């Protein structure tokens, strides 16, 4: 197990290095510069600014300096918001995004998995048809349609919930629902499929022949195998929740990282783009590692190597 984790960690580090390099050179190759503004700046001042940020050096040299800095946890200043460092920006808005993402994941798993299990156990009854039709609708509606619809219904028509900002739990509900329900729909369908497959296995008949009660059959005999499709989808779902949060944060004016990412890209705020990329990539690599470990833990037939 330890060997497996270490191997996957090393692999993850290589992936992160590759992502960093690709992002760095793509950003460097983008036309324009972080320091071009509408106002005319005297060339000597511009040169001074460029020298301050290290932009007078050749790209390859800048790459190694920035890589060394990042490895030491130093993401540099924001090239556009002159008085703030990238680390400060992340420290401010990451907790917001993390909360939104975690709540959305909780909704996705907490609603999707029980609904899927129930639908499988009660297949071809209304406990199957209703959640599955709802989830089909959920999958078909993209976040940028679902968000405004929810805001319209619960915010403007019913006037139950605030539709923008991030000032307390009641503000969390609509963004969380928009982001989470979409994945809940996926998890419900995947769990239903996985559980149905398990419930049709011969070993279920063996368990019944032993006199095992039906709930034990579902929870003890079928859940592990039945969750494998959902767990496999967890990796892509986490990545999707992270990128989906960009859209949701924009719709509901949530002061999270998503807004910064968009702004940084538009402003060519190189350090911020790189810092956020490293952050998101690290998150996704770690999540995928956790998903892999969970899969191995669930399925004894998978070996650790």
């Amino acid at each position, binding site marked *: 197990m330890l060997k497996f984790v270490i191997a996957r960690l090393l692999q993850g580090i290589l992936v992160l290095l590759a992502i960093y390099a690709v992002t760095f050179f793509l950003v460097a190759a983008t036309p324009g510069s972080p320091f071009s503004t509408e106002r005319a700046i005297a060339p000597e001042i511009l040169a001074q600014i460029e020298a301050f940020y290290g932009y007078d050096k050749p790209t390859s040299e800048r790459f190694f300096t920035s890589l060394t800095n990042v490895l030491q946890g130093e993401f540099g200043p924001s090239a556009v918001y002159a008085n703030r460092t990238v680390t400060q920006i992340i420290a401010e808005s990451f907790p917001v995004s993390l909360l939104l993402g975690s709540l959305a994941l909780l909704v996705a798993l907490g609603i999707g998995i029980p609904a899927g299990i129930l639908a499988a156990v009660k297949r071809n009854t209304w406990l199957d048809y209703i959640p599955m039709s709802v989830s089909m609708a959920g999958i078909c509606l993209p976040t940028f349609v679902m968000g405004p619809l929810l805001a319209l219904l619960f915010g403007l028509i019913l006037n139950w919930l605030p539709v923008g900002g991030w000032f307390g739990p009641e503000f969390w509900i609509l963004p969380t629902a928009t982001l989470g329900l979409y994945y809940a729909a996926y998890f419900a369908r995947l769990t239903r499929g996985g559980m149905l497959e398990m419930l049709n296995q011969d*070993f279920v008949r063996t368990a019944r022949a032993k006199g095992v009660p039906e709930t034990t059959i579902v929870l003890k005999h079928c859940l592990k195998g039945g969750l494998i499709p959902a767990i496999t989808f967890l990796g892509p779902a986490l990545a999707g929740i992270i990128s989906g949060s960009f859209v949701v944060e924009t719709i509901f004016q949530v002061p999270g990282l998503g807004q910064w990412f968009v702004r940084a890209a538009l402003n060519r705020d190189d350090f911020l783009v790189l810092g956020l990329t490293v952050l998101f990539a690290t998150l996704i690599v770690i999540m995928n590692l956790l998903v892999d470990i969970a899969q191995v833990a669930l399925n004894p*037939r998978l070996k650790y190597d």
Partner: protein
Amino acid sequence: MPLLDVNDLTTHFHTRDGVVRAVDGVSFHLDRGETLGIVGESGSGKSVTCYSLLRLIPEPPGRIERGTAMFDGQDLLQMSPAELRRIRGRRISMIFQDPMTSLNPFLRISTQLIEALQTHQDISNKDALKKATAALEEVGIPEASKRVTGYPHEFSGGMRQRVMIAMALITEPDLLIADEPTTALDVTVQAQILDIIKQRQNDLGTAVILVTHDLGVVAGTCDRVLVMYGGQEMESGTAEQIFYAPRHPYTRALQKTIPSLQTKGQELYTIPGLPPDASKPATGCAFFPRCPYPKNRDPMGERPDLVDLGEGHCWAACGYCDSSAPIESVLAKADEAIVDPLPVEVETAR
């Protein structure tokens, strides 16, 4: 009173393509400690008969239409689900044809072994595990104390079937139903598995229903035999009667298919034609389309009556297609037929 007395068991599947008469009025009984063989080709309704007893058929599409199955004075077919659960795995256990899929690949062998114990008895984990290890030793699994915590994929097919036997017998049930326990295994391990079942049966005094499509297996293992075809009884009797004095054309045809009695190196003999299509309405003799004997019976006519030949020997008395013949001439004809070799060639010549 027999341990199990099954009467007119009838199980149909109501599928989109019509009604499948998987089991159509089967009766048999079994005493304590006795072994009953159920023999027939694939599709004869043997498995469905077994599953119906423990009500393990998928419902829907399956439905037990008629019949009784008195087990120790209680009708298995009328019990409440809760009562039935107390019988399953405690008083009646079952092992299945395919040991590769019948064990749960996600759970340890130990977990699965002790499950029946913990479902039906108040027993500590430690004691249950001890019993599980002992149960594995008794079915001849080496290093049982080490292997008991393993997973099914670490065991070969033969070893898994041993685990299944150990699991089924761990509660010392009154009845073990073994549905083709050796069919999916290598020829070399088949005899071992049968020996283990037999030995454990002797140790525990368990009654056994042994399902097989090999009449040869029955000869050495069973007290009584039920020959099934198309969901119906063709013949039943003691192992000797069925093996040495078969009356029914189907039993006689089955006898020709016994692998161990056939000349080595030749292609295995199988009965020409296909097993009956259970989704066709059942009329007349189920074996009619494949029967090699001269036929003048109306294929859509009456089903041959079950006739008692004495000493517990019964058959679906077709009288070689002469349903109007008096019983004496039928018996005489049947005796003749035993002397004659089965005229299988008639079928191929036509």
